[in-house]
């Protein structure tokens, strides 16, 4: 618990987080604090460990070493966790952290509305009417009020991703994780998803966003983190990291990305 409990201003805290896949060291000691209401964008080349870092925060990939705190409580059981067994940590985390994936991962056998209501009913125990009301409101909010009964295969990628965001928001998360949510989208569909995320940021949601959208990071992020080789290479306000990076590696990466 220690220093994390202070005033509850730190939402997520990571200390010395390490993660290996077999012999591959994907995270090699990551320290990070995210404050309530903060929007943190994580940039980096593929294989830098940024998605793994994100997935560590909601224990989809439990770290082997180090500690992760959420709202002042340690959520790591240490080595050997992540065997798939249910635990209070898992319940604690999954009730507070929402995640949106690159591949949407909507439930294809459920309509848009059912995607948003299923976990409300089964996990939070809301009544069907309550869940439906909340689901319809959220879909309305992401601009899909007319698509409630459509099945995912009949929605565009951008629409599917907005359903996925609504589905995560329906659980009233305190933190939202976004894992390259626009990378699988056609360019013309990227904006509609980023607009929803921007609104969410303006409303004060605590967000951790792994992205290649430099423009979004510059505009929306409170802080930008650049990762490479499983460590945080550089972090700071977007203007500093993106416009005048200190580290050679960051300059190189941004040069390559902005050249596109």
């Amino acid at each position, binding site marked *: 618990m220690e220093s994390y409990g202070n005033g509850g201003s730190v939402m997520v805290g990571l200390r010395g987080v390490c993660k290996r896949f077999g012999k591959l060291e994907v995270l090699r000691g990551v320290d990070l604090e995210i404050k309530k209401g903060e929007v943190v964008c994580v940039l980096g080349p593929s294989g830098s460990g940024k998605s793994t870092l994100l997935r560590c925060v*909601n224990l*989809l990939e439990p770290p082997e070493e180090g500690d992760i705190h959420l709202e002042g409580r340690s959520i790591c059981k240490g080595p050997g966790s992540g*065997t*798939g*067994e*249910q635990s209070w940590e898992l*319940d604690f985390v*999954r*009730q507070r*952290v*929402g*995640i949106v*994936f690159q*591949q949407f*991962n*909507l*439930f*294809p*056998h459920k309509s848009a509305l059912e995607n948003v209501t*299923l*976990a409300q009913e*089964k*996990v*939070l125990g809301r009544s069907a009417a309550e869940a439906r009301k909340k689901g319809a409101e959220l879909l309305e909010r992401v601009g899909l009020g007319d698509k409630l009964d459509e099945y995912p*295969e009949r929605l*565009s*990628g951008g629409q*599917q991703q907005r359903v*996925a965001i609504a*589905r*995560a928001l329906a*659980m009233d998360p305190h933190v939202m994780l976004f894992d390259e949510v626009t*990378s*699988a*989208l*056609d360019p013309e*569909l990227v904006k509609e998803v980023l607009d929803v995320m921007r609104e969410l940021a303006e409303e004060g949601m605590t967000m951790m966003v792994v992205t290649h959208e430099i423009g979004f990071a510059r505009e929306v992020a409170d802080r930008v983190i650049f990762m490479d080789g499983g460590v945080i290479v550089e972090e700071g306000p977007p203007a500093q990291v993106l416009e005048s990076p200190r580290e050679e590696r960051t300059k190189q990466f941004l040069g390559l990305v902005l050249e596109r």
Partner: protein
Amino acid sequence: MQELINQYFDVGFMADHFDEVLEGFWFTIQLSIVAGVLSLVWGLVLAQLRQLPGRGAAPLRFATIAYIDVFRGIPLLIMILLISGSVPLLDFLPEWLRIPQWFGKPDNFWFGVFAITITYGAYMAEVYRSGIESVPQGQMEAARSLGMNHRQAMRYVIVPQAVRKVFAPLLNDFIALMKDTTLVSAIALSEVALVGRDLQSQFLNSSGLILGAIMFLVVTLPLARLVDKLIAREQGRFTRGAPRMEAL
């Protein structure tokens, strides 16, 4: 030629014994439906036990895999004989299980049902497993991330998708099961094959068996066509572009 027709396709003989054969076939249908439904359920239970997560469930997983391997490898006829020949003699079992007479069916009916369910449950478990494994990993991740536990994720997200995918192969197994119910004739259960065989030995004519075979075809052919349709539909779904991954 005439001899061949008389031996196998004696229409007059078939007409004379139609009712007996039909009665035997009706028995076959009942056996198929009861054993088929139980196998479907038992197979799904086995498939889920096999997929249980966590180290604590390892012994159960191992036992399930062993069960599936063993009972897929034992001929159904041997299972039928093992059960019907010895279960009634196991005095430690309660009588309702030793000599089951549920729903007015004779004990041999239920021994047949047990043997078929034990064997076909193992087959169907493997079919379900292939379906479960064909559901993308991201579905489980999405369900778990929303706070569902493993059981809820299986029940509401994974299994409904898996069953849809394996409906056709399950139906195939059901057709095979139906045909295999004729093996219970070995324990003197008067289903269609035994009726046909009795007629054969009594009148030295196989037309009764052919009649039984025709009754099978009347049921299995439409089922086989249905399987083809379902497979075509499933493939149609896929080529219509179910995974919309724009940039990939």
